[in-house]
């Protein structure tokens, strides 16, 4: 094939038509000659020959077609051949410089992988968190108390009115969440459950994998006990078998028939602590914690229009909420907005974008550097006859090959990164579990890196060709050292990398300090050697209040008897947990405010304060407290209702002031310091009421706080106590209060860790870039250095010169980066705690770190410079 190919090129070229004409003309001529030999004259002979040959036009046309076809095929083969040759050469070259290639590939892969993973996370949790049909139009509806800004769910009357009359809403659903205990299949486990209407699966647009939704008989109290299970539960417990329908599941000790399997992607609009594995029918009075309302707007309806309409509907139907006669607002909240760590996620997205830029700059830098070192090779090839275009194409192929390999690596890293995020997430960041690889983010990152890689490869090629052959072969070039344009470009790249790294480092430093501050917040009580054990008392086995009280007292007695235990107390919750929350109007002897207040509550046993070592002014509860309606409040509560006066002795009662009788007054007997509620921080404005543990309160969840002797681990003994008292109960979780407090700042810690990783990567990449530039300069200026040494410069002088050049570049980059950081940290102010955006410690630390790294990056080139032999250098090789 090669032989004919070459021959073809030599003799055909682009002259297909001409050749065919020549060939046919020859034939005609020979035919005419035949006739002339027989005696015809020339003209007649030609005419006869033409007649003889016949339809020459068709022959010519056919031959042309064949000729062009061959030409095209040859051309294709030629291009392919050249491409294969280029690729093989590129592979050879790249594998000869393994170190460089590895760095370039790794840089690209990390940049693409990290940025895609984070962008995917942002997309799945904030921008597009729900896999529902029409997800963009889905929003939760809340009532907002204008004063306290507390959000409450709308009640059933409102819901029904809206469902009937709203024209802005396409569909709506009510649902509740709870936790159920599944027994009977291996160890007892707690699963997340939801109570939904039969129309919920249709609302999500996700069809059931098996079975059917609920029917009327199953929606009444006392009706058939049925449930849908999640795909995950189906595969785990039932092996994905088809006969799952009709099987039974023991939920909370009651048998429930499985009537369907929900798609794996079906989940509640708002993420809850446990993924929903069991879907139960929303039966009247079945909700434990109240319901939530979600709606899907019709296409084209704005949030404000919908809000106006539903408010109208309430007014029209004269529906006033029972608790308040004052104004209230309605709010539509998109599922993505509720993500508590939204800011952190955006912060990470920004950080990783910076990292990607650094990575691109680094790859570009590496390509330029390589382009420079290959000048000689290219010069030789040019001298041997390779066309410029050919060389440029070959270099481009190299860059393209590198870009493709880097992208492939990037895709792998991206996939791994997404899995890592989902697996390593702190438990509180539930939404991250649903992160999936976002193809758009991946394509974006890949395209950007590929473009950067190819663009800079091209630039390198371009510069490499422009140098004249003689100069390159001589190896001296201009005494300034290399193509000035490339050098400037590379210096610029290094400065950029340094600046970006500085920004990342500042951000990481600020976050590290914030987390440190958060971890060291004084919780207001003594958390050393303090454990909390949360127990859930299933209602079916502890129906009566007396049963629950008895259990509680038994646990306290048994736990107190354990040798290492110092004190045990019981309450609705141990900080940072919250016992309960209520909204009510409050009346004091001084007067009342009719607007309902939001306040937290906790039912406690008398030794609560002493066990927690929480400071209490006044006294704690005693046996008669329940009778006398004693209460204890925290300082925030006291400040709010009795500012400037001692709260002990004051009286208050719940209600809107319409009670005429003198009943229900409660007396404040003590004021306690604030404790963290929900987060690690003690909010100064969170009022909290403590009440004596009242059996009639119907508490099914009890938290035991246990103080132990230092070094004693009570986890196993405490669980044993519970097991002995009731072996069908799920073994309760026993954790230290310190751990609970720590996990409440899990989100910040997670962000901090990731940011620290990104910053480190960026710094490493910048160091590599700086090393490259300084190294290059040293190589180019070898002659000059040789001369200097010959003229008497000491190696120390030379070293200083080299290092100072490197420091100049990094100082410029550092300065730019710090300035940019000041501006940039304004954005993340809300995630910082205890530090300002211009915290000097962070900035100084960043500067020192970068300078140190820069000096380190210059070490190797510096030593090379110091060892330059002036004789060899001046000879110029």
């Amino acid at each position: 094939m090669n032989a004919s190919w070459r021959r073809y090129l030599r003799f055909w070229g682009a002259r297909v038509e001409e050749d065919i004409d020549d060939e046919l003309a020859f034939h005609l001529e020979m035919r005419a000659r035949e006739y002339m030999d027989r005696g015809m004259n020339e003209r007649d002979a030609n005419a006869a020959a033409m007649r003889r040959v016949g339809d020459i036009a068709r022959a010519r046309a056919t031959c042309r077609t064949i000729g062009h076809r061959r030409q095209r095929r040859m051309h294709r083969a030629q291009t392919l051949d050249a491409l294969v040759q280029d690729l093989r050469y590129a592979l050879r070259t790249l594998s000869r410089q393994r170190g460089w290639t590895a760095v370039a590939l790794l840089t690209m892969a990390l940049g693409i992988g990290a940025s895609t993973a984070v962008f995917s996370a942002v997309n799945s949790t904030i921008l597009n968190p729900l896999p529902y049909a029409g997800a963009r139009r889905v929003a939760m509806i809340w009532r907002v108390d204008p004063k306290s800004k507390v959000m409450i769910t709308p009640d059933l009357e409102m819901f029904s009115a809206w469902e009937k009359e709203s024209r802005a809403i396409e569909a709506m659903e009510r649902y509740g969440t709870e936790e159920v205990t599944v027994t009977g299949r291996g160890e007892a486990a707690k699963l997340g459950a939801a109570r939904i209407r039969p129309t919920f699966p249709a609302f999500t647009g996700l069809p059931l994998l098996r079975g059917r939704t609920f029917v009327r008989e199953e929606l009444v109290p006392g009706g058939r006990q049925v449930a849908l299970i999640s795909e995950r539960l189906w595969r785990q417990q039932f092996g994905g078998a088809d006969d799952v329908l009709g099987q039974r599941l023991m939920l909370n000790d009651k048998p429930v028939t499985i009537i369907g399997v929900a798609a794996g992607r079906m989940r509640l609009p708002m993420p809850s602590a446990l993924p929903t594995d069991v879907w139960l029918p929303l039966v009247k009075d079945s909700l434990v914690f109240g319901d939530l309302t979600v709606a899907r707007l019709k296409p084209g309806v704005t949030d404000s229009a919908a809000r106006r309409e539903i408010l109208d509907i309430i007014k029209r139907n004269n529906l006033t909420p029972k608790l308040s006669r004052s104004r209230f607002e309605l709010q539509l909240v998109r599922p993505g907005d509720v993500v508590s760590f939204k800011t952190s996620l955006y912060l990470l997205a920004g950080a990783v974008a910076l990292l990607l830029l650094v990575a691109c700059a680094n790859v570009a830098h590496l390509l330029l550097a390589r382009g420079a070192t290959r000048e000689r090779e290219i010069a030789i090839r040019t001298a041997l006859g390779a066309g410029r275009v050919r060389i440029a194409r070959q270099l481009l192929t190299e860059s393209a090959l590198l870009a493709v390999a880097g992208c492939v690596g990037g895709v792998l890293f991206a996939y791994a990164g997404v899995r890592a995020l989902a697996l390593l997430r702190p438990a509180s960041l539930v939404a991250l579990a649903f992160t999936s690889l976002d193809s758009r983010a991946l394509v974006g990152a890949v395209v950007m890196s590929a473009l950067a890689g190819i663009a800079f490869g091209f630039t390198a090629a371009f510069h490499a060709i422009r140098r004249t052959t003689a100069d390159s072969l001589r190896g001296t070039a201009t005494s300034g050292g290399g193509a000035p344009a490339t050098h400037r470009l590379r210096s610029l790249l290094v400065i950029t990398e340094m600046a970006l790294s500085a920004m990342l480092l500042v951000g990481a430093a600020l976050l590290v300090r914030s987390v440190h501050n958060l971890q060291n917040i004084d919780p207001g009580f003594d958390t050393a050697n303090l454990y909390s054990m949360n127990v859930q008392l299933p209602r079916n086995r502890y129906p009566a209040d007396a049963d629950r009280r008895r259990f509680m007292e038994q646990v306290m007695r048994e736990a107190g008897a354990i040798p290492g235990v110092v004190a045990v107390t019981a309450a609705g919750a141990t900080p940072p947990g919250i016992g309960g929350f209520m909204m009510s109007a409050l009346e004091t002897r001084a007067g009342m405010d009719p607007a309902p207040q939001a306040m937290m509550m906790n039912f406690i046993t008398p030794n609560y304060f002493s066990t927690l070592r929480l400071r209490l002014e006044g006294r704690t509860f005693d046996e008669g407290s329940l009778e006398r309606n004693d209460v204890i409040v925290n300082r925030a509560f006291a400040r709010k209702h009795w500012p400037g006066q001692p709260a002990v002795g004051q009286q208050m009662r719940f209600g809107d002031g319409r009670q005429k009788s003198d009943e229900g007054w409660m007396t404040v007997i003590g004021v306690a310091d604030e404790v963290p509620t929900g987060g690690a921080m003690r909010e100064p404005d969170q009022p909290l009421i403590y009440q004596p543990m009242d059996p009639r309160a119907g508490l099914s969840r009890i938290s035991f706080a246990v103080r132990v002797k230092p070094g004693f681990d009570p986890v196993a003994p405490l669980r044993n106590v519970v097991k002995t008292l009731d072996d069908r109960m799920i073994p309760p979780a026993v954790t230290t209060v310190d751990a609970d407090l720590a996990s409440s700042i899990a989100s910040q810690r997670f962000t901090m860790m990731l940011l620290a990783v990104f910053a480190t990567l960026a710094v490493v990449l910048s160091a590599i870039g700086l090393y490259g530039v300084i190294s290059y300069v040293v190589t180019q200026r070898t002659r000059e250095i040789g001369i200097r040494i010959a003229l008497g410069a000491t190696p120390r002088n030379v070293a200083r010169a080299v290092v100072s050049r490197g420091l100049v570049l990094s100082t410029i980059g550092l300065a730019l980066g710090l300035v940019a950081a000041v501006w940039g940290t304004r954005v993340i102010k809300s995630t910082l705690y205890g530090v300002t955006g211009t915290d000097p410690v962070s900035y100084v630390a960043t500067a020192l770190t970068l300078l140190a790294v820069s000096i380190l990056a210059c070490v190797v080139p510096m030593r090379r410079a110091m060892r330059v032999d002036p004789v060899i250098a001046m000879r110029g090789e």
Partner: protein
Amino acid sequence: MSEPAIDFLKGTLDLMILKTLSWAPTHGYGIARWIEQCTDDTLSVEEGSLYPALHRLEERGLILAEWGITEHNRRAKFYRLTVAGKKQLRTSHEYWARFAGAVTRVLETAPTTA
């Protein structure tokens, strides 16, 4: 000057071209003349078929083309058989012999009277 007597099947033309070239490389006109001479002008090659056939054979790699000089000092395109061409010639020749033999047998066999 005989009229183009019989129309050729493309395949047989290819076979004859290959055979002609197996004697010696020659140009298109030379192939046409040789066939006419061999058959005493019984078979006359139609030029409209000859050159497309030649070009197709070249595309298939069975023959190679090269510009050269004739004995009259004219520039002409000479064709030559390749190794693949030689093999194809052998195969086609065998096939032709079998085919022709079979047709002949049909034409000459008379039904035996019962």
